[in-house]
């Protein structure tokens, strides 16, 4: 173990032994200070990982500091709204994933169970609720939740609002099922009402110039994210430890910020160099098999990706990195953000997701699809059969891998390995 890894491990143990909001804030303030953050960033061999870690720590630190109001947000919201209102987003579901990395999910899940969250519910939400009950997450001033994709967040967010006595600052964005002109107007109206209400509560006027700038930055981020995705269509080698499934926070939570632009510009530069090398035949890629990964991954220590790498498999793409929305229009910001939200493939019919998967399979020359079937995710798992049958029609093997993204006790590593090996054998037999 290197010195840096030892330091990281030490920090992890310290947090595990001092599970308090103030202690987490203290640690974030230390490692989030500019010199230490740069030094920390320098420990990563990959530029993509370096910037991912820097922007994540920087923004989580902001949400713990009390300089600007913090707002809890559910995953698929258009975060441009938050940034234009100068409220710091905190994504409990995503940070619940970080608690997996910190090794504290046993504690958060136990706390949730003691508060009557039954074990059949999604662990992302149970962990997040447990962390809120344990007073680990920052105190929010607002909570905004979208009905897109998942039933659970709106309930847990409301319970959080009740805990902090701010039910009036809880907003549920009712995302319509279909994408059409009427549903765009309905959703845009909700975004406008929420923005106005929050501005009033913050004793400010709605800042349209700032909203316009946020939209501009969001488009810039989208431009670089599309460029990254474009070159990944050909790329078969990745920097060490690069995992596209780690980018869910900046992809959503930082849309509309300079940080997202810088991060995706750097990912592009790093991957472009690798692609150039690959094209110059300096890297052999003929034996590499390309997978599409659906849903998320286990956030605790696991062997899945090492096993894939050892067998010459790469994640050629992940559905969470699919740029699903058209360029935003700063002239019609709310309508534009409504269109972005309604364009999400997880909204509406499962066919929307199937269409996205088919497009990715074709564009990224996918050899097989792995759908991680996270325990408790009715939305994703409920489409499993339809996705599998649709891919079967175009002769793409699919593995529905049962497990749990956060609770290692609800996931059998032996079974996962056996099933992955069997799946790889099927794909290998085709070459």
């Amino acid at each position, binding site marked *: 173990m290197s010195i840096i890894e030892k330091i990281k491990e030490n920090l992890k143990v310290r947090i595990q032994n001092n599970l308090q909001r103030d202690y987490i804030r203290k640690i974030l303030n230390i490692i989030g200070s500019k010199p230490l953050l740069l030094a920390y960033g320098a420990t990563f061999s990959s530029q993509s990982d370096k910037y991912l870690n820097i922007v994540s720590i920087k923004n989580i630190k902001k949400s713990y500091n009390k300089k600007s109001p913090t707002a809890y947000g559910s995953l698929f919201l258009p975060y441009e709204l938050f940034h234009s209102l100068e409220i710091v987003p905190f994504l409990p579901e995503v940070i619940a994933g970080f608690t997996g990395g910190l090794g504290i999910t046993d504690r958060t899940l136990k706390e949730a169970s003691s*508060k009557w*969250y039954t074990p*059949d*519910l*999604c662990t992302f939400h149970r962990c997040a609720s447990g962390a809120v009950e344990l007073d680990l997450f920052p105190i929010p001033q607002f909570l905004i939740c979208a009905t897109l994709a998942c039933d659970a967040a709106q*309930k847990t967010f409301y319970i959080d609002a009740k805990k902090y006595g701010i039910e009036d600052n809880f907003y549920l964005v009712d995302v319509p099922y279909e994408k059409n002109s*009427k*549903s765009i107007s309905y959703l845009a109206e*909700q975004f406008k009402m929420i923005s106005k209400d929050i501005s009033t509560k913050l004793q400010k006027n709605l800042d349209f110039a700032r909203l316009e700038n946020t939209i501009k930055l969001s488009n810039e981020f989208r431009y670089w994210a599309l460029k990254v995705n474009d070159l990944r269509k050909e790329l078969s080698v990745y920097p060490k430890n690069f995992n596209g499934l780690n980018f869910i926070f900046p992809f959503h939570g930082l849309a509309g910020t300079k940080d997202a632009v810088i991060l995706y510009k750097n990912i592009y530069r790093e991957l472009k160099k690798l692609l150039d090398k690959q094209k110059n035949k300096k890297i052999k890629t003929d034996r590499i098999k390309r997978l599409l990964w659906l849903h998320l991954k286990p956030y605790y220590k696991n062997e899945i990706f090492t096993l894939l790498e050892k067998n010459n498999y790469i994640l050629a793409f992940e559905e969470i990195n699919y740029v699903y929305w058209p360029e935003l229009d700063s002239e019609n910001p709310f309508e534009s953000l409504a269109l972005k939200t309604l364009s999400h493939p997880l909204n509406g019919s499962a066919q929307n997701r199937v269409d996205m998967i088919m497009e990715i399979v074709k564009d990224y020359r996918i050899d097989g699809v792995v759908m991680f079937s996270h325990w408790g995710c009715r939305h994703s798992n409920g*489409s499993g059969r339809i996705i599998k049958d649709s891919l079967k029609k175009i002769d793409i093997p699919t593995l529905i891998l049962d497990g749990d993204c956060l609770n290692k006790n609800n996931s059998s590593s032996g079974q996962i390995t056996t099933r992955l090996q069997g799946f790889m054998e099927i794909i290998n037999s085709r070459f």
Partner: protein
Amino acid sequence: MVMDREIIPFAQFHINSKKQYTKKIGWLCTYVPEEIIIASGFSPARIIGKDKVKKAEGYCPINFCPYIKSALEDILNSSSNLEGIVFTNSCDGMRRLYDLCNTYIADLPSFLLDVPRNKNEIAVKHFENNILKMIDFLESLSSKTIELTDLENSIKLCNEKRALLKRLNNYFKNLQSQIGIKNYFQILKFAMTEEPENFIEDLKKYLNYLDNEIDNKQKSSNISNNPEANNRESRIMIIGNFLDEDRLWDVFDELSCKISADDICNSSRYFENVTEPHAVAGLLNGYHSEFSTKNSYADLNTCEKKDKIFLKLIRDIAVRQLYKPQCMRMSDLNFKLVEIKRNIKNNNIGGVIFISQKFCDNTLLFYPLFRQQLNMVNIPSLLLEIEHNNISTGQIKTRVQAFLEII
């Protein structure tokens, strides 16, 4: 203690409802307005998931709502009995059920009604638009245009059924030993699955009989006026989602408890509130909607007179549906808590039994908040997770008995 009950069964009055004349449209969620189905010339029939899950298991993940699975089994087994199905986007499970039916039972026409989760003016208007789309869907199936009179008549019919069910519910609350818990829920099942006109006729006869019978019994044995007998029973409230389980209700019939209030998908959430109150004025007391004011129709002023009346009725339906006792899927959980607390106070409830289908996120995620709030007012609650069509009555009976001892 087993109560000595003399139940007056509905079965002997259940004659008309056995005859089926009209083509059926299936529905699954109480947010589907039956008025529209009836106005289009169909009979609304709730898909209750009566079949044991076999084939459906292959289409759904293991940890999926057991009611949804049973409903899919019903549809797979008897889709030919239906002209179409109206789904709602009530929850993740229901959206996926719609996807599965659309994909694997493509011959059966289906429509998904988008029901908002918020209750405000823009949500009502959004819902109205979606109800108009539902009309398009049904008109295309029936090849018939819904006229104003069709809609007026269907609203009247639905309101009449709701009012009669409310009357039945009053009997159920006050004279439970004569109505019987299983019998009551069976009547509600018929209300949701059978032709409305026929069912209404049967229910009217049953209620008239009850009026006379109970009146006579009260005179002779003074049953309900015996305060000591009433006090012996534990007054409980049942809260949950879709609970169509004869064996579960048998357990309650056998125990010394009285369901004095309920908040479940196949009872009060189905029949409470009427559409356009003046249509059946006097049948329900105390129903007032914030949308039933003149100003709420101001945006319709530019429409032709006939269109205006039609659209006004659609708005009334939208308001009734969104403002009826709400499902846990809706946004404002505080409103739900207020509704429940009011029920507890008004009915002098000693404890609440919260029954949920397994894997129902909307209901199960309400329980932590609900329990915490009830603890604050010293009302005990019991959580029972059940599996539709597959319940363990022995275990449930033991748990309910223990709970009744506490309260």
